[in-house]
Every structure is written in structure tokens, then in C-alpha cells.
């Protein structure tokens, strides 16, 4: 493709985008000659250039559209069909341009349909009063398929189109006069058109000079098209330059009297300016992302039979193009949603006493280092009841859970995957892909999304996103000998806390707090939160406090040292580290070392001390109720400084044995315990025993066999809500959870049992071979599935697990015969009661005993379980009770048989 064609393509595509927007404006304001003049001019330019480049299809289409517009300009009444026709033509033009871009040549095809319709409309428009040169309008069909004629003009001759273009582009009136004379002989019939244009072109120009800076901007400003890749490359290089500069600054900082100081200062300033400049090249007005919206809204309005006004504010607000690209689709989607679901039909609006025309308002403005975008409509607001129904239908929450939620919390479910409340699936929306994608996109760029809805008054979605993702200003801090970067944006102030000073760290039970201007600020020690050790020992009362704000939540992060602020280049974290919510990225410091960037959002949700509305809403969002139940955990340390924990219910005893009692045999550590040899297992795999004194052990027993897990120290027994972030594939680890404000690893005891006795599971199965019974264990929580499966296996059952009621039913229906089923009660989708009822209603499983496993142990729940058909009801942490209940049911069966 030659440069000329490429330039033509970019230019034309841009012009067409403008035409799109302008046409919609024009339709609403048909008397605005300025808009029409603008459109006319653009289409005409396209037509002219097409003729010049030898693109007959494009030219014919543009010409037909131009003719119709000419009619409007001459005063014919503007019709909706007419505008729709022109818009369709624009679409066709875009299509052809697309092919042209791909193939380098105009695609084969016939546009007779559109052209003849356009002509019909032109004819119809002619009958309107202002249509003066009726007779002359016949030629277009001839002119359209005949661009070749214009192309083959003899050298020195100029086509009429070219002349027209030249005429309009030459601002001077003088040039106009001789031109028609030259052109007239060759194409006589069209001459009047040229004449007619003269008066019209002038007002258009006047307006262009007055207010239409879009047009004026293109012409008046010196602009240059630069490939996006070039800009990206430039940005990368500037990032590197910033890093190098930081490096140099770091070196000079160490040498007091350096002759480099002054030139380096200069270099630093220049770098900062360069960085600024390059960032600016990446900045684009958000209006670019909005450009297509008026057309979309108009088409939607026609399709849905609604009258919609799109009101846009702050289109000039600038943001990084990388961010812009990422929010383009979510924005479009949300506007579609507002038009489709938000706004009522005309009739309904009238009944509700609202203006017939619905309004969708888009606004954007800067706030701190963020850009805030709000999309609001004055429609019916979210239908809470319908959302509730949908939540129940999709089993995203139980009725009981819904009862406790506020409206705002319920509304947030529209961001759940696959959620759509539209009663009917229209071509516009309602396919249930959307709001979750919107949220994912926004999350990805570190933005937040908020929703407000008032029934009958409308819905407002507010998005807050960072202006740029590439370079941020960060505060470098140190904790336990490691440095971290805290994004400056969320830091409010720094406070130095010292013993005996005004600011000192106080404690309420174990919770550190700081009195700051007559308010209590919750504190969190970074080293504890991250589970790191090293450097200076923790000083309980002193330290630097980074006062941080996340949303409405304010808290202090206690660090050992605060260094300086630095412009850091954010580098994405490795996929292996991305699950750590405390960090948002990595960066390279001036001295070349890599440090982690703290994510204040992650810290805020980890401490959760200040139960602000936002935090509690977030918690309600986490779908599973039982993960919030209090669980007694035994917290200990073993192998490393990180806290570890196991559910207390699984631990048989805590023991301390004298180190000299630990023996070795066959490369394993053993200890005599209650008359038998008990194998010892370590968490890390390397046995690190104390050299003297006594060694603490956690003893896990089952059916007369015991295993000792070697630990360094037992820290505490805490009762806490356990919210495990299950990390995959880590042997021996179920995941990490924050227990009492500290990151804690939750051990998978099921992993260690076979390390002690390789046949731990096999043994039982062998012994009771004839009795081996198949057990189906249904629980939605991976934590409990992992935790109880070994227990059940150890009790001699062949365990199959299912992550939910429906999966359980599928397994049952799959044909395997199960001797007993153990099911959790509180599960999403299908709860335990429903599951039991479903089992009962199927003849094949009607007699299979089912045991309920639940933390709800009130009489009502037990009665409900009995009605649903459960044979027994066991509290979730009652391991012994579960085994006993299983034994009992199997005895019953044995007796019955």
C-alpha cells in the first residue's frame, strides 16, 4: 500500500467518525446550517479524494450521500429516514475502507441498493419547496458509475470535484470567480450546484472560525501522525532514562562534594521534563472514547423506540491512552446498558410523570491523580426485587443472606459473572456478559467502580481510574530490612512515633493504634502483615507511620524507616506472584535493586480494622457465608518466620518432648510416645530440631496411630474468621489467610499424614476391604473438602468429593453406588436441604443415608434437615461426631440388610 493511500485511509476514517457524530447532532438540530455545512464538507472531501485515487465504489456512495445532503442544505425538510440512510452509507463506506486497508484495493461489490435509495430520497426531497434546480438532479446516477471519466481528464484539466474542493479550501473569495468558468464547459449540468454552494459555504466557514475548533484545530495546528509503537518505544526508553537518572542520583547522594552534582541536577530536570512531555503525547481527551457513543445511542433509541438524549461533559479531560483503550469498551457497554435497561419507554416515562425524552449523562473530571467518570441516567433505577430473584436463581446467595444485605449490596451483584436482569434478551444487551467484564477491566487498571441507584430516579455508575499506569511517585520505606514502595497517591502524611513523645503507639489488647489529632488511627505493622523478620527488632512503641487512605478508610502502616520519594516505573509482577494481594507490582530502584510496590487496597482489606461501609460491603460480596464463620485455629511457627496455622479441631494434642528422646531409624525421626513409636514430620521437609531442651510437637492421631509435626513454637490459639486465599499446587499448604492482621499459612494436614505412614490411607482400606464403603462428600468450600477428606479416608471410606449440590447429584446420577453421603448445608446454587430433597425424590438414592454437616446447629435447622431427609446432623468441626454418625448409619444399614 502506498503512503498516499494509507494517509487517505487514516484521514477518511477520522472524517467519517466526525460525520457520524455530526449527523446525530444534525438530526436533533436540523436547522443548524453550520453542522450541515461541516458534514457536507467532510463527505465532499472524501468523495473528491476517492475520485482522485480511483476508488469508484467509495466515490459513488459518497456522491449519492452528498447529493441528499445537498438537498437538506438547500432547505428540504430533514427526515429521520434520510439521516438513517446517510448513516448506513457511512457504515458501508467504513466497510469498504476496512477491506481497502486489508487488501490494498477496493473490494468487489455493488452499492446500487444504497445509491438508488439515496437517490429516491433526493428526489423526494426535491418535491419540497426549496428544491430549485430539479431538472439538474437527474445526472447523479450517471455521474456515479462514471468516475473513470473524471479520472481520464487530459493533463492540465481538473475534475469538477477537485475544483470544488480547491474552491472551498481556498479561503479567498477571489479564487472562486474564475473556477466555474473552467469547469463549466466540461460538466455543464452540475454548474448550478457550484453556484448554489457559494452562499452556503460561507456561513459554514464563519461557524468554523467561530466555534468548531475540531475542524479548525486540524487545519490550524501543526500536527504529525506518529505510530503508536514509536510512542510506546519512546515511553519505554524514557522509563529506562528515569531509572538511570535515579541511579546516578543515588550515587551522588553518597558523595557529598561531587562535581557531578550540578550537571546531574540539570539532567534530572531535563529528564523530568522529557518524561512529562512523553507522557503528554500519550494523553488523549476522553472524548475520543466517547466519539462513537452519540451514534450508538441514536441507533439504540430507534431500535428500542425510546427517545434518548446523550449529555456529555468534560470530554476534554485527558488520560493516558493505555488507560483510555482499556475503558473504551466498558464505557460503551455501560451506556448501552443505561439506554436499554435504565431508561423506560416513552409511554412509561409519561406515566411516571417524567419528560418523554430520557437522558444519559456522561461526565469526566480529574480528581487528584485519578480521573472520575460518571455514567448516569434518569431512568427507572435498578430493580432490587428482580436482582434478588436472579441472585437466588443463580444461587449467588441464599435468601437468608439477602435478608441481611442493604440495597446497595444487592445492587452490586450486577457485577457478578453471567448476571443479567434483562427479562428479554435484546440484540442490545441482556446476554449476561457485560457488567462483570466491565468490572474486570476496571479492576485490571487499578480502578474502582461504584453504583448508586434510586428507584424511579435513575442509576449512576462512577468509575475512578488512575491517570497513568506507567510511572508513579512512590515513597520508599523499610521494614524488617527490606525496602518497599508505597504509592504516594494514597499516602496522606507521615508521622514519627516515639516513646515519650506526643505521638506514640498505644495498644488496645493487641491492636496497635495511634492518637492523631484527637482521633484513633488503626495501625498495622508492615513486617507482621507480610510475615517477614530481620533488621532491627520490632519496637513496640516507636516507628514511622505512613498514614494511608483507601476510599473512606484511613489507617497507618508502621515501618522502620522512611527514605525518600522516587518516581518509579511500575513493572508488572510475575504471574507467580500475582496472587499476593499486598503487592501491586515491582520496580527497580536507583541503586538497581528490585523492590515490591505495596498495594494499599490489599493492606486495607487485610487489616479490615476500620469496618467502614465499604469494607463491610466488600465482605458481603465475598459470596460464601461459611468462610466468615469463626474457626479456632492453632497458630505456630515452623521452619520459617511465617506464621502457620491448622484448625484446632484436627490437632489431638500439643506435646513437648525432650530432644534427646528423639531417635533416628531408617532416615526418619521417631519418638517413643505412649508406648509406641511415633514418626516425626517437619513442615519444610528438612528436619530442623532443636539442639537441646525440649521440642514442641503437634500430635495428630487417628485409630491408634499418631504423627508428630515438629514446630518451632506455638504462638497462640485464635478464633478468627478464616478467609483462605487458596493457593494452588503448594504441597502441604491449603493457602494463606490473614489471622489477627498477620499473614498466616494454613497447613494441609492431609499432606503430612502419608509422610509419616506411607500406608496411612491404604492400611484402612486393606483391613476393611470387604467393608470399604463409598462416600460422597459434598461441600462447596475447598478448605473443608481438603480438610475432611483425609479424615474420612482414614475412617475407611472411599471418598468422592463434589463442590456443590448439583455436582453431587450429577455424580450420583453418574451411576456409582454410594453407601453414604455427607453434605454441607450452606452452599451456593443448591443448598444442602435442596440437595437432600432432590436425592429423596429420586428412587435410586431415596434410601441412601445422608448426613448433614453444618455450623448451624440450632433446633430449627436440625428439624429442617430431618424434614429434608437427612439421617443425622453433625456440627461442622465435630470430627469425632462425624465418624460416630457414619459408624451408626453403617450399622443401621448392616442391620437392615
Amino acid at each position, binding site marked *: 500500500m502506498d503512503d498516499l493511500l494509507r494517509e487517505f485511509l487514516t484521514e477518511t476514517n477520522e472524517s467519517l467518525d466526525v460525520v457520524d457524530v455530526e449527523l446525530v447532532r444534525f438530526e436533533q438540530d436540523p436547522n443548524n446550517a453550520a453542522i450541515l455545512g461541516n458534514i457536507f464538507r467532510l463527505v465532499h472531501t472524501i468523495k473528491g479524494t476517492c475520485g482522485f485515487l480511483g476508488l469508484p465504489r467509495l466515490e459513488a456512495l459518497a456522491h449519492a450521500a452528498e447529493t441528499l445532503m445537498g438537498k437538506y442544505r438547500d432547505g428540504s425538510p430533514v427526515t429521520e429516514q434520510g439521516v438513517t440512510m446517510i448513516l448506513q452509507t457511512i457504515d458501508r463506506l467504513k466497510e469498504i475502507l476496512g477491506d481497502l486497508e486489508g487488501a490494498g484495493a477496493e473490494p468487489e461489490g455493488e452499492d446500487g441498493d444504497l445509491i438508488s435509495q439515496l437517490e429516491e430520497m433526493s428526489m423526494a426531497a426535491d418535491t419540497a419547496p426549496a428544491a430549485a434546480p430539479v431538472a439538474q438532479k437527474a445526472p447523479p446516477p450517471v455521474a456515479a458509475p462514471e468516475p473513470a471519466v473524471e479520472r481520464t481528464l487530459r493533463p492540465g484539466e481538473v475534475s469538477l470535484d477537485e475544483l470544488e474542493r480547491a474552491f472551498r479550501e481556498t479561503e479567498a473569495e477571489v479564487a472562486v470567480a474564475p473556477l466555474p468558468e473552467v469547469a463549466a464547459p466540461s460538466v455543464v449540468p452540475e454548474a448550478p450546484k457550484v453556484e448554489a454552494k457559494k452562499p452556503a459555504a460561507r456561513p459554514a466557514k464563519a461557524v468554523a472560525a467561530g466555534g468548531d475548533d475540531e475542524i479548525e484545530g486540524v487545519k490550524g495546528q501543526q500536527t504529525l501522525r506518529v505510530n503508536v509503537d514509536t510512542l510506546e518505544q519512546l515511553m519505554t526508553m524514557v522509563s529506562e532514562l528515569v531509572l538511570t537518572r535515579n541511579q546516578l542520583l543515588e550515587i551522588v547522594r553518597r558523595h557529598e562534594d561531587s562535581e557531578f552534582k550540578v550537571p546531574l541536577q540539570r539532567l534530572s530536570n531535563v529528564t523530568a521534563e522529557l518524561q512529562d512531555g512523553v507522557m503528554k503525547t500519550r494523553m488523549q481527551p476522553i472524548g475520543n472514547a466517547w466519539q462513537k457513543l452519540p451514534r450508538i445511542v441514536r441507533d439504540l433509541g430507534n431500535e428500542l423506540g425510546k427517545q434518548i438524549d446523550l449529555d456529555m461533559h468534560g470530554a476534554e479531560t485527558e488520560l493516558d491512552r493505555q488507560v483510555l483503550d482499556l475503558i473504551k469498551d466498558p464505557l460503551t457497554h455501560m451506556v448501552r446498558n443505561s439506554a436499554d435497561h435504565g431508561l423506560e419507554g416513552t409511554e412509561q416515562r409519561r406515566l411516571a410523570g417524567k419528560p418523554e425524552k430520557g437522558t444519559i449523562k456522561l461526565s469526566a473530571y480529574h480528581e487528584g491523580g485519578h480521573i472520575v467518570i460518571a455514567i448516569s441516567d434518569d431512568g427507572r433505577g435498578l430493580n432490587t426485587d428482580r436482582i434478588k430473584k436472579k441472585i437466588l436463581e443463580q444461587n449467588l446467595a441464599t435468601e437468608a443472606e439477602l435478608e441481611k444485605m442493604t440495597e446497595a449490596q444487592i445492587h452490586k451483584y450486577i457485577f457478578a459473572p453471567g448476571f443479567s436482569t434483562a427479562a428479554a434478551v435484546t440484540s442490545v444487551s441482556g446476554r449476561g456478559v457485560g457488567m462483570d467484564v466491565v468490572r474486570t477491566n476496571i479492576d485490571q487498571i487499578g480502578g474502582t467502580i461504584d453504583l448508586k441507584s434510586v428507584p424511579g430516579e435513575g442509576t449512576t455508575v462512577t468509575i475512578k481510574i488512575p491517570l497513568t499506569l506507567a510511572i508513579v511517585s512512590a515513597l520508599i520505606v523499610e521494614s524488617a530490612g527490606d525496602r518497599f514502595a508505597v504509592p504516594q497517591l494514597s499516602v496522606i502524611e507521615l508521622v514519627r512515633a516515639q516513646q515519650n513523645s506526643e505521638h506514640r503507639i498505644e495498644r488496645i489488647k493487641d491492636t496497635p493504634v495511634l492518637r492523631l489529632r484527637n482521633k484513633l488511627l488503626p495501625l498495622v505493622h508492615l513486617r507482621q502483615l*507480610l510475615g*517477614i523478620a530481620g533488621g532491627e527488632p520490632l519496637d513496640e512503641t516507636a516507628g514511622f507511620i505512613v498514614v494511608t487512605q483507601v476510599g473512606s478508610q484511613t489507617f497507618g502502616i508502621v515501618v522502620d524507616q522512611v527514605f525518600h520519594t522516587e518516581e518509579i516505573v511500575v513493572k508488572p509482577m*510475575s504471574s*507467580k*506472584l*500475582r496472587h*499476593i494481594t499486598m503487592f501491586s507490582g515491582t520496580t527497580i530502584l536507583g541503586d538497581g535493586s528490585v523492590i515490591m510496590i505495596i498495594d494499599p487496597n490489599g493492606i486495607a482489606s487485610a487489616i479490615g480494622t476500620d469496618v467502614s461501609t465499604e469494607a463491610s460491603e466488600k465482605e458481603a460480596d465475598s459470596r460464601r457465608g461459611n468462610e466468615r464463620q469463626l474457626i479456632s485455629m492453632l497458630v505456630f511457627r515452623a521452619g520459617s518466620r511465617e506464621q502457620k496455622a491448622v484448625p484446632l479441631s484436627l490437632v489431638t494434642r500439643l506435646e513437648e518432648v525432650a530432644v534427646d528422646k528423639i531417635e533416628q531409624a531408617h532416615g526418619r525421626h521417631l519418638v517413643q510416645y505412649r508406648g509406641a513409636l511415633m514418626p516425626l514430620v517437619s513442615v519444610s521437609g528438612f528436619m530442623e530440631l532443636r539442639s537441646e531442651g525440649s521440642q514442641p510437637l503437634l500430635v495428630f492421631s487417628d485409630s491408634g496411630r499418631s504423627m508428630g509435626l515438629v514446630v518451632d513454637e506455638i504462638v497462640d490459639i485464635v478464633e478468627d474468621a478464616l478467609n483462605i486465599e487458596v493457593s494452588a499446587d503448594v504441597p502441604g499448604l491449603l493457602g494463606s489467610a490473614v489471622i489477627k492482621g498477620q499473614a498466616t499459612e494454613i497447613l494441609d494436614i492431609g499432606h503430612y499424614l502419608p509422610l509419616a505412614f506411607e500406608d496411612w490411607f491404604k492400611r484402612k482400606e486393606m483391613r476393611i476391604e470387604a467393608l470399604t464403603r463409598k462416600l460422597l462428600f459434598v461441600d462447596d468450600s475447598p478448605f473443608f473438602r481438603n480438610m475432611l477428606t483425609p479424615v474420612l479416608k482414614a475412617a475407611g471410606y472411599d471418598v468422592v468429593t463434589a463442590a456443590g449440590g448439583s455436582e453431587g447429584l450429577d455424580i450420583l446420577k453418574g451411576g456409582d453406588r454410594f453407601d453414604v453421603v455427607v453434605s454441607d448445608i450452606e452452599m451456593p446454587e443448591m443448598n444442602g436441604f435442596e440437595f437432600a430433597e432432590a436425592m429423596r425424590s429420586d428412587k435410586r438414592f431415596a434410601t441412601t443415608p445422608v448426613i448433614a454437616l453444618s455450623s448451624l446447629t440450632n433446633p430449627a435447622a436440625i428439624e429442617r434437615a430431618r424434614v429434608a431427609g437427612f439421617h443425622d446432623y453433625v456440627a461442622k468441626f465435630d470430627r469425632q461426631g462425624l465418624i460416630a454418625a457414619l459408624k451408626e448409619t453403617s450399622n443401621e444399614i448392616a442391620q437392615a440388610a
Partner: protein
Amino acid sequence: MQTTSDDVTEYVTVLIGGQLFGLPISRVQDVFMPDRLTRVPLSHPDIAGVLNLRGRIVTAIDMRIRLGIPREKDAKPAMAVGIESRGESYGLLIDSVGEVLKLSPDSREKNPINLDVRWARVSAGVHRLDGQLMVILDVDSVLAMGGEQLAA
């Protein structure tokens, strides 16, 4: 991986805890001295940390821990093998790097069934060499660990 017609594979050999391992040379980007490793709190225990290698951030994996070989007292990992996977850079911390061997599939065998699970997981077989055995490291399996699901 196949460099010549008779299916000879070239391996970069490394020593980890006294055992010879081989990495297919096509997967090895470079060999470097790990310098200034930054530990990452809360990360997978096998991840030794992150480091800066000529402006790139490399995630270092401690092969001794990955293979369950106890670390010698105060012995810092001397070398690292740089590999790339899905656009990300990783460094496998090892004891030392040996020569490049051209091996034909004749001497290659499957993992012995009684191999330690931690080894079997990351091994793609064993080559019988003169005087010693070389375990083939399957780079993708070495990298397959925690965090994958979350990233996907």
C-alpha cells in the same frame, strides 16, 4: 530442541546438590550470577525472590527447595540459569553450571518409578552417562507451581 538429523538433543548441564541435571539448550536464555536478590514476602516457598537482570525483573526459583534438597549452611546459590516462559523471565538458582552435552535418545530413559515425587514432578527422564546419571529438567514443570490459576 533437535539440532541434527539423528535426534541429538543439546543440554546445558547444571549441578544441584551434587546431582547432575540437564536443561534443553533451546530453553536456556543465559547463565548469570544472581546478585541482590529481593525476597518477596508471602510468596511460594520455592520462590527465592526477584532480581534485576539488565533492567528486566527476573523471578528466581530456588531449585534446591524445589527439589527438596537441604541448603548447605551459608552456601549462597552461586549461579542462575535464565529461562523465559510466556513473556516472563525466570532464573533457576543452581550450584554450578557444567558443559553442554549432546545426547542421543538412546541413552535416555523414563523416570524410575521410585523417584522422589518432588523430582519426578520436574523431571522429563534420565540420561545414562558414563559414570553418572543426568536428570532432564522439564522447564515448564519447574515453573508450574502456585499462582498459576490466579494469573490465568
